[in-house]
């Protein structure tokens, strides 16, 4: 088949699925819309595999479809660029997207048929937008996808729109994303103003980089990073992600863990040359990533909602990815994106399976002992927990280790903080695992009688993701284990090569790296065992009210409250002033004032209209006399 058409098919098939399931939502039976939705993503996945092998053997593919915007000095074409980086993202998005579609077809089965189709149409639209985001050959096409995923995220968080809290969470996500998007948009304008193009190849070419001063580069990269903080839930715009858990669990798995939130990492990896040339931005990214990672991990320690733990864990893992970007280890960041997509999707889907069995219960304090009832979910969740905790040989070990090794290269302090984060990760994940699957069941008797393993459409994606979480790390075997075995590094080499001259290369000896690995794994293991001993037989009676720092953690460092006080309240009071004074008194005052002035004036003037002819004539004569006087004497 024609290559252009083949590439276009990747995003167009989900779009087609969106149109069919969306427009036919009142007619299509549930099974049919599920089949259409899953089928289009599967087809996209197959094409993605074909594209992957093409790119692997033949290098990047650039296709230009049509001129999108034509101005006097600026032509913008609608173009796709499928290179090594994009091809990996395509596989992750369509592959995991497909598994989650299959999972959803069972998970959402209790919805009525129209809502069910609506759900799948949103999900397909999301995949379409995400594909547009990673396939776009210039920043504007990326931005279209960027906005599209934000919209779908909003729609899906507020999917159960009858619940006020959920719609509020959706609005929060949308508004916070918009703040970041503004930064991205300004960066695009900056590109157009200085380079006159937004095409990746043009912008990152040697000539255009020469045309940019160092202020330009720092400014653009900072603005791009603002966009990334919004989409990828970094400080200070991270609070929307935990609230986004209001959406259905498969949505949390797909959008708020595996794909959309990694858009910021993709964007920075895409613009790696520019970022490498801006050391100031790199240190900002490093600091923000580090702070977010530690903050979110510490909050996750004390959360009781199973999805909230995973949500903060996602924020924290995204922090790791930004640490990797901040030290210039782009491959490590992309590697962590991939492995994180595997194990976090697995954990979310597993938690969905648990929530499903518990009849919608999300509080871990009411769970416990579920391993007896849900064997597959239990084992796969355990694998996910081990993977995210960085235990060898699971996927998380390789990617996290690579990030930590790179952080050590930059400074041992960063490594130390990274390991601290990893310990917290291991602790909260095994707290979750122990509280959910071990001990005695703490829910109601009614819930207990309904406990069951989920159907195959749920367990099969879990098993596939579990296998990926076990094996996924082997695409990036570190140099110390086997020379040149880091497949991902070799594969992504062409994408990140241009930034190499701007980065200082840190090499650490093999012996040091072995020690670092052993220390981080050992400390994580200690954290796991501590969590295990503490929460293995957790019961409601043993729960104490949290005091001191624990209470602060339970309340999420009061970040939401802080934003409430510092940003929302002042804005509300300013709006109140504007409403009361400028709107009601000023603008309404002018409009109503003119009206009442005319009304009052005419009420007064109408007394002149007495109907007495003599009075009219008298006035006329007086008027003429007045004219004469003015003419003659003034």
């Amino acid at each position, binding site marked *: 088949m024609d290559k252009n058409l083949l590439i276009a098919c990747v995003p167009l098939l989900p779009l087609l699925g969106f149109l069919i399931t969306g427009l036919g939502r009142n007619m299509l039976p549930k099974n049919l819309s599920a089949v259409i939705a899953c089928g289009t993503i599967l087809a996209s996945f197959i094409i993605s595999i074909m594209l992957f092998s093409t790119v692997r053997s033949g290098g990047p593919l650039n296709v230009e479809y049509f001129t999108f915007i034509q101005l006097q000095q600026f032509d913008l074409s609608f173009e796709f660029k499928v290179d090594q980086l994009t091809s990996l993202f395509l596989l992750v998005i369509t592959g995991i997207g497909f598994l989650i579609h299959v999972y959803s077809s069972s998970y959402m089965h209790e919805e009525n048929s129209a809502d069910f189709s609506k759900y799948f149409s949103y999900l397909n639209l999301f995949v379409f937008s995400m594909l547009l985001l990673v396939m776009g050959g210039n920043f504007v096409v990326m931005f279209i996808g960027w906005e599209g995923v934000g919209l779908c995220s909003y729609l899906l968080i507020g999917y159960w729109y009858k619940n006020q809290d959920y719609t509020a969470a959706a609005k929060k996500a949308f508004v916070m994303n918009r703040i970041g998007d503004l930064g991205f948009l300004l960066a695009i304008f900056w590109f157009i103003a200085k380079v006159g193009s937004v095409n990746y190849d043009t912008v990152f070419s040697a000539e255009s980089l020469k045309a940019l001063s160092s202020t330009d580069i720092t400014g653009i990269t900072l603005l791009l990073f603002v966009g990334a903080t919004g989409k990828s839930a970094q400080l200070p715009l991270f609070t929307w992600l935990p609230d986004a858990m209001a959406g259905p669990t498969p949505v949390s798995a797909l959008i708020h863990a595996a794909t959309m939130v990694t858009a910021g990492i993709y964007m920075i990896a895409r613009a790696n040359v520019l970022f490498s040339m801006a050391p100031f931005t790199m240190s900002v990214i490093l600091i923000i990533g580090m702070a977010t990672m530690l903050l979110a991990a510490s909050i996750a320690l004390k959360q009781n909602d199973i999805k909230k733990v995973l949500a903060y864990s996602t924020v924290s893992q995204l922090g790791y990815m930004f640490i990797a970007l901040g030290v210039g280890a782009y491959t490590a960041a992309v590697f962590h994106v991939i492995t994180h997509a595997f194990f976090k999707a697995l954990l979310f889907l597993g938690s969905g399976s648990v929530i499903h069995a518990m009849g919608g219960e999300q509080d871990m304090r009411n769970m416990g002992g579920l391993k007896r009832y849900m064997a597959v979910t239990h084992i796969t969740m355990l694998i996910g927990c081990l993977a995210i905790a960085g235990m060898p040989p699971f996927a998380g070990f390789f990617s996290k280790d690579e990030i930590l090794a790179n952080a050590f290269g930059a400074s041992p302090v960063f490594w130390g903080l990274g390991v601290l984060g990893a310990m917290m990760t291991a602790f909260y994940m095994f707290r979750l695992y122990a509280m959910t699957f071990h001990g005695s069941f703490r829910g109601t008797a009614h819930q207990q009688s309904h406990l069951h393993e989920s159907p195959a459409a749920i367990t099969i994606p879990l098993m596939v993701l579990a296998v990926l979480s076990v094996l996924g790390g082997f695409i990036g075997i570190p140099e110390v284990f086997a020379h040149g075995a880091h497949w991902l590094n070799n594969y992504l080499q062409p994408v990140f090569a241009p930034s190499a001259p701007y980065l200082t290369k840190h090499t650490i000896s093999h012996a040091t790296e072995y020690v670092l690995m052993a220390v981080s794994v050992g400390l994580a293991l200690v954290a796991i065992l501590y969590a295990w001993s503490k929460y293995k037989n957790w019961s409601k009676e043993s729960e104490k009210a949290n005091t001191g720092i624990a209470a602060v953690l339970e309340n999420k460092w009061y970040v939401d409250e802080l934003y409430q006080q510092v940003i929302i309240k002042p804005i509300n009071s300013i709006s109140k002033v504007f409403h009361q004074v400028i709107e009601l008194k000023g603008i309404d005052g002018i409009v109503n004032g003119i009206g009442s002035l005319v009304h009052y004036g005419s009420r007064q003037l*109408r007394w002149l*209209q*007495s*109907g*007495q*002819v*003599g009075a009219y*004539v*008298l006035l006329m*004569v007086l008027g003429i006399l007045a004219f004469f006087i003015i003419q003659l004497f003034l």
Partner: protein
Amino acid sequence: MDIKAYIVLALILFTIGVTGVLIRRNAIIIFMCIELMLNAVNLLLVAFSKMHAMSAVAKASPTFASDAQIFVFFIMVVAAAEVTVGLSIIMLLYRNTRSVDVNFLNRLKY
């Protein structure tokens, strides 16, 4: 005769007309007063015309001297037409209300 005498006469006539319109309530008398004002103006026009007919400008242009006098005829024709309409209105008014008092007709107010 001196032009001043004509001006004074016209002024007196006009003032009588205005005063009549202002103070009288009988529609017919008001009407007559309006005519008085018109004719005061006519008188002035003719007087000024006669006065200027002796000036140098009038001698150069033969028709100039009679312009104002012809204009007076126009005014009289228009006044006659106006009187026709006005009197008919007053006639109808009287038939309907049995009165020609203008203050009685104050319904068109506010």
